């Protein structure tokens, strides 16, 4: 059994989480990450990871196809912008719902199998979606070039209220521009709401059933419980989370490309979840933030920047230090990420959250003894 936490504790946790997310532009500044594009990516992929965790973290079903829902969300949102209005609300709603519809279809097919067969089926179906978007459905998706907003689009609702302009319009929320910090706060609110929903699911009887599926599905079947509806609901919820993330990507940067649906994008979500700690509440978000940080900040370091960092060293040492570390930044950022991932999987199978718990246990030995079983229980669940 999970240690049951009081609702008050949960609300406090969500409050702290909301504070952390909303103050990101302040506390990320020293890390060189406080600019709208990356902040938006942080919260959007946070939503993605929270949703993925509902499926993978709770039921243990490893889906390799979530990028497809992300893509569906993006394409639907951009089409809403093109056809109806640049207001983001309809785009977000339709993007999420469309991903839900896709999730019902794909989930219905894939959930007939479990384990590795389920993973392969989702991978295959997602890759199929990608190839369709890339080639056959080019009239809808604009293929590899990606779906873009043009000044000549109809935008029926906007056309009724606004004067047509020559320039490409930007996405708005009733007049608030959604491409800069406005977009970040919009996505941040979405992340806090979805995180709240995820906490409620984790604490609910439904969440308990999902955990039961992970620990022993056969036993559940023998007790007379049909697990498939629960699995399908979990799959659809996490697909809709991905669709929401996809439509938010389109909100902050109105362009949808097929590469968002490629299997490497699905793999990235799996990496995020495992890196942070699958099945924990914060872990996947943490994983998403770290991977996005590496992808955007480490890949931009060049030799000049390294020389600045190591300038406190004597000249010869400096060039040696720069020479070695240059292999791990810039174009070598994949290497750093790979190494970190290996170390974490080998030494901290529970992800970064496990590492964090261990440190806390070290620092507070008295409390740790009391809490340690709870922690283990949580990981095993």
């Amino acid at each position, binding site marked *: 059994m999970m240690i049951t936490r009081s609702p008050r504790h949960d609300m406090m946790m969500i409050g702290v989480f909301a504070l952390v997310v909303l103050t990101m532009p302040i506390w990320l500044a020293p890390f060189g990450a406080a600019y709208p594009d990356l902040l938006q990516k942080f919260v959007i992929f946070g939503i993605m990871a929270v949703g993925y965790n509902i499926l993978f973290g709770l039921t243990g079903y490893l889906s390799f196809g979530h990028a497809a829902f992300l893509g569906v969300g993006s394409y639907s949102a951009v089409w809403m912008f093109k056809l109806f209005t640049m207001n983001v609300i309809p785009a977000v709603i339709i993007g999420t719902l469309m991903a839900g519809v896709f999730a019902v279809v794909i989930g219905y097919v894939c959930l007939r199998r479990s384990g590795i067969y389920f993973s392969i089926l989702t991978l295959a179906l997602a890759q199929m979606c990608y190839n369709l978007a890339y080639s056959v459905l080019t009239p809808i998706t604009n293929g590899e070039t*990606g779906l873009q907003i043009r000044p000549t689009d109809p935008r029926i609702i906007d056309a009724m209220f606004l004067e047509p302009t020559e320039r490409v319009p930007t996405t708005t929320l009733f007049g608030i521009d959604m491409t800069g910090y406005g977009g970040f706060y919009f996505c941040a609110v979405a992340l806090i709401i979805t995180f709240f929903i995820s906490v409620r699911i984790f604490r609910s009887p439904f969440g308990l059933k999902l955990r039961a599926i992970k620990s022993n599905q056969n036993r559940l079947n023998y007790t007379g419980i049909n697990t498939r509806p629960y699995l399908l609901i979990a799959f659809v919820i996490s697909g809709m989370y991905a669709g929401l993330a996809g439509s938010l990507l389109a909100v902050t940067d109105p362009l949808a490309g097929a590469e968002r649906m490629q299997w490497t994008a699905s793999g990235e979500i799996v990496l995020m979840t495992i890196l942070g700690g699958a099945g924990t509440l914060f872990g996947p978000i943490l994983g998403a933030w770290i991977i996005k940080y590496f992808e955007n900040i480490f890949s931009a370091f060049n030799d000049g920047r390294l020389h600045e960092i190591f300038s406190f060293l004597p000249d010869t040492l400096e060039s040696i230090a720069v020479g070695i570390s240059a292999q791990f930044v*810039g*174009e070598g950022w994949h290497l750093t990420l790979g190494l970190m991932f290996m170390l974490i999987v080998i030494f901290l199978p529970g992800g970064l959250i496990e590492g964090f718990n261990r440190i806390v246990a070290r620092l507070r030995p008295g409390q740790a003894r009391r809490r340690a079983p709870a922690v283990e229980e949580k990981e095993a669940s």
Partner: protein
Amino acid sequence: MSLFKKEISRRSALKGASAFAGSAIAAPLVFSKGAWAQEFLNDPGDSPTVTLGFNVPQTGAYADEGADELRAYELAVKHINGEGDGGMINTMTPTSLGGNGLLGKRVEYVTGDTQTSADEARSSARRMIERDGVIMFSGGSSSSVAIAQQSLAQDMGVIFMNGLTHSNDTTGKDRRRYGFRHFFNAYMSGLALGPVLADQIGTERRAYHLTADYTWGWTQEESIVNTTEGLGWETVETVRTPLGAGDFSQYITPVLNSGADVLVLNHYGRDMVNSLTQAVQFGLRDREANGQNFEVVVPLYSRLMAQGAGENIAGILGTTNWHWTLSDPGSQAFVASFGQEYGFPPSQAAHTCYCQALLYANAVEMAGTFYPPEVIRALEDFEFDGMGNGPTLYRGGDHQCFKDVLVVQGNPDPTSQFDLLQVVQEVPREQVTYPVDFFEGELGPYEVS
């Protein structure tokens, strides 16, 4: 009483009114001049430095090109700042560059990895614009990436100087006011290559196309098919291959029995190296079909690719934007300073990126401001010479450069590891120029904020 009472005469009233009216008219001018300078994104203002962003593929199928582009940008920044030997600044005419930075500000730069993907490129570009405050960004390889960045440039109001991008769409249907291309395009390749193909391998040919499956591949295939069918060739089949496929054997086997006698490889970068090497390994070039020698054509060639494909390229025809063996003073100066810096000659990707950086810098000096609409107006219809391609025009109607195109051939006996291509013909600019409305497209407005 009258001592204190100031009479308001007609004269003083008029004086006061006219002064007030005058200042009322002048005031907006004073304010708007300040506002006009403030209004654009990432205005360097009084800062002693100005930042440029270089967004190139450091990973993926075009990584070699990206690395060479970055070297060229670093060299260009040095020359703009007045370090090194100045390179093409000395040969460019007309030039406003004095080797003292941009409008007296020292040029700094930031770099990013596009990963040859539109999403990543845009997010990297937004980092440069939003965090690092770049006043211009530039980069290349892969047209879909270039087009995605160009539309971002238009949205945000920061100029984007295209690096290596060869698709017709970049300055065709996806042209943008804030995007500029120095490189030539697939349509020009077709116009230049046609007569040489007819001359060297005949007009009775059956062609089989393998095409990289994205905007550049599609437009190049279309252009080459149009040109060759105009010569009397027949197109047997056109097959799309995914970008970065690695193994092309499944696409090459069907060529053998297709009845074709020419294979056109619409591939670039490592894709071209792999597909060409495999085509040669399959013995395509030793075959005879329809009573003629089997030929391979690579419409877009570069020395880096030739280096990767080794001796397989001997005798293969294609076009290129520029080659380091050209003997004009501009090319010589660039090759000399690039060679001195890095120890080997630059590629065409390096050349076009270097030129773009200098052209932007020159336009800023000409405009006397960083305000993008003014810089754009300075670049539009700018006619220049001494940058390696002869007299060149930056056409204002579509932001495409028009200059001579080189038709090249793989060198059958190279004298060094860099002497891999020989120039067959320098096709003059008039022959590759097309009307501005040949491709339909809208540049969009100058002012975006």
